[in-house]
């Protein structure tokens, strides 16, 4: 669990993080989105006790940032922006070092477990420097999980990975989510955030909005339903616009794009209306904005 209250970090006159108040319950995958320089990495560093806040408070896994720093670092796993492995040392040796630093009891067992889980066991004696970017990233993920942390901070886990490796990493994140761990995911990959996260926070020095991807779409763009008709009469569009629960209706070729709050409740009525007006409906579907559209809109508004 992560909770912050007006968390602020200032470097000189520059505020990197301003009044961040946030609650992430245990077991949630929280996507932390924002442009470069928005303060995402600074936030991760604050929450992992690598830097101290200028003001405000934060609690991670029930422990207080600034007071229980060593215990917090013991209870969290961090995947930093760059893997930062010891290139001259083998994969196994890299993980053993960290297992010792994290006070893991069964060092050998845990190292083997995660090397196998991430498909690196066969290459365990190879120096990390000989690994591809994807393999290094997997090794860094293993390092973040060796001590079975309750909360995991992942900073751009799939950046610079090929689609296959990125898919494997995403599957792995879902796997650790199933184990009930809290995951704080910083990413620029909006599709990834959409697929993995329970909630998303869009951040630019301060938090712009926090919600589930679906609700964010609805908040920013409203919900839209597209009716594909055989033929669209202008009068039909005007007729739809006059219905009380309809917020907007527009014709695009042989389609009518309807904005409404609650399609689940009102769609049947709308379909009945169209049929009664003689419209021949080919398809009905919800227009789903991508999270990228939502993000860009939020950035534009900010």
């Amino acid at each position, binding site marked *: 669990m992560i909770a912050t209250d007006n968390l602020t970090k200032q*470097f000189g006159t520059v505020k990197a993080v301003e009044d961040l108040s946030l609650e992430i319950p245990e077991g949630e995958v929280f996507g932390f989105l924002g442009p470069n320089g928005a303060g995402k990495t600074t936030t991760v*560093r604050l929450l*992992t*006790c*690598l*830097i*101290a806040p200028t003001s405000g408070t934060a609690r991670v896994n029930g422990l207080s940032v600034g007071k229980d720093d*060593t*215990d917090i*670092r*013991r209870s*969290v796993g*961090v995947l*930093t*922006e*760059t*893997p*930062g*492995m*010891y*290139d*001259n*040392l083998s994969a196994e*040796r890299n993980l053993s*070092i*960290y297992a*010792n*630093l*994290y*006070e893991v009891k069964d060092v050998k067992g845990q190292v083997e477990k995660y090397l196998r889980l991430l498909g690196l066991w066969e290459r365990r004696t190879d120096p990390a420097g000989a690994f591809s970017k994807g393999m290094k990233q997997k090794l*860094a993920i293993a*390092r973040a999980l060796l001590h079975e942390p309750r909360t995991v901070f992942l900073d751009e886990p799939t950046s610079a990975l090929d689609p296959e490796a990125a898919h494997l990493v995403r599957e792995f994140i879902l796997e650790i989510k199933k184990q009930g761990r809290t995951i704080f995911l910083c990413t620029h990959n909006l599709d990834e955030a959409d697929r993995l996260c329970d909630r998303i926070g869009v951040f630019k020095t301060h938090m712009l909005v926090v919600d589930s991807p679906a609700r964010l779409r609805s908040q920013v763009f409203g919900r839209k339903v597209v009716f594909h008709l055989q033929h669209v009469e202008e009068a039909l569009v005007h007729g739809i616009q006059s219905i009380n629960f309809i917020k907007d209706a527009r014709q695009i070729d042989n389609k009518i794009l309807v904005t409404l709050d609650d399609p689940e409740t009102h769609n049947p009525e709308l379909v009945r209306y169209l049929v009664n007006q003689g419209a021949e409906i080919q398809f009905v579907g919800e227009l789903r904005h991508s999270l990228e559209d939502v993000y860009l809109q939020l950035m534009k508004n900010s």
Partner: protein
Amino acid sequence: MNKIKTIIRKEWSEVFRNRLVLFTVAFLPLIMTAIPLGILFSMRGETGLETVSSEMPEQFNAMCPADLNGGECFQVYLVSQFMLMFMILPLAIPATIAAYSIVGEKVTHSLEPLLATPITTIELLVGKSLAAVIPAIVATWTGFAIYAIGAWILIANKSVYAALLDSRWLIAIILVGPLLALLAVTFSLMVSARVNDPRTAEQISSLMIIPLMLVFIGQLAGLFFINRQLILLAAFFLIIVDGIMVYLSTRVFQREVILTRWK
């Protein structure tokens, strides 16, 4: 303590794969040991040096034991000049190791994951410092031990041997050596905060050898001669300087400073 041991082992398995570090740790002591032994070897059975004592500084003539003849005194004088070179080892070795272990880690971005572990800043600093200081002390002491054994074999007159290995050099090797090594590590830490390239860090850190070289040249020119009082004074001075440097390096080696100001 386990974490400190882990850091030391990690440092050694990383830096000793670097050829330059390996060269500095292995070959530099060999060279420094070979020079005085070479002088002793070349002067074996040398005659006609009885009158050269007049060429030596007064201070040294006064220090030379009465039971040694002029030639033997000259032998002690010549070898003593190079004993100071042993002091280069505790300066050069830690500077090289620290340059690669700290700046190297900065370059490969491996410091941040390391700082994210539950290791305390002091444990990390102690681990990294010991990883650089221990090889320097071991190399210096081993080199000196080899020199002592070699000199025992090469010198027939054991009074000459006793004059060569008198208390001032034992104090220098046993006490001043580790103090110099600590100075080198703390200085390298300061340098590490400012540079991004291990070679630059090493080059800047090696500037510390300059004062030692000035002492060497000064002694060779007869401006002064290193005696026990001077070495004890140097040890006292180094204890104070090391104390200040340790304090400053702990200020520099803080998580937040490393992550936000080490550029």
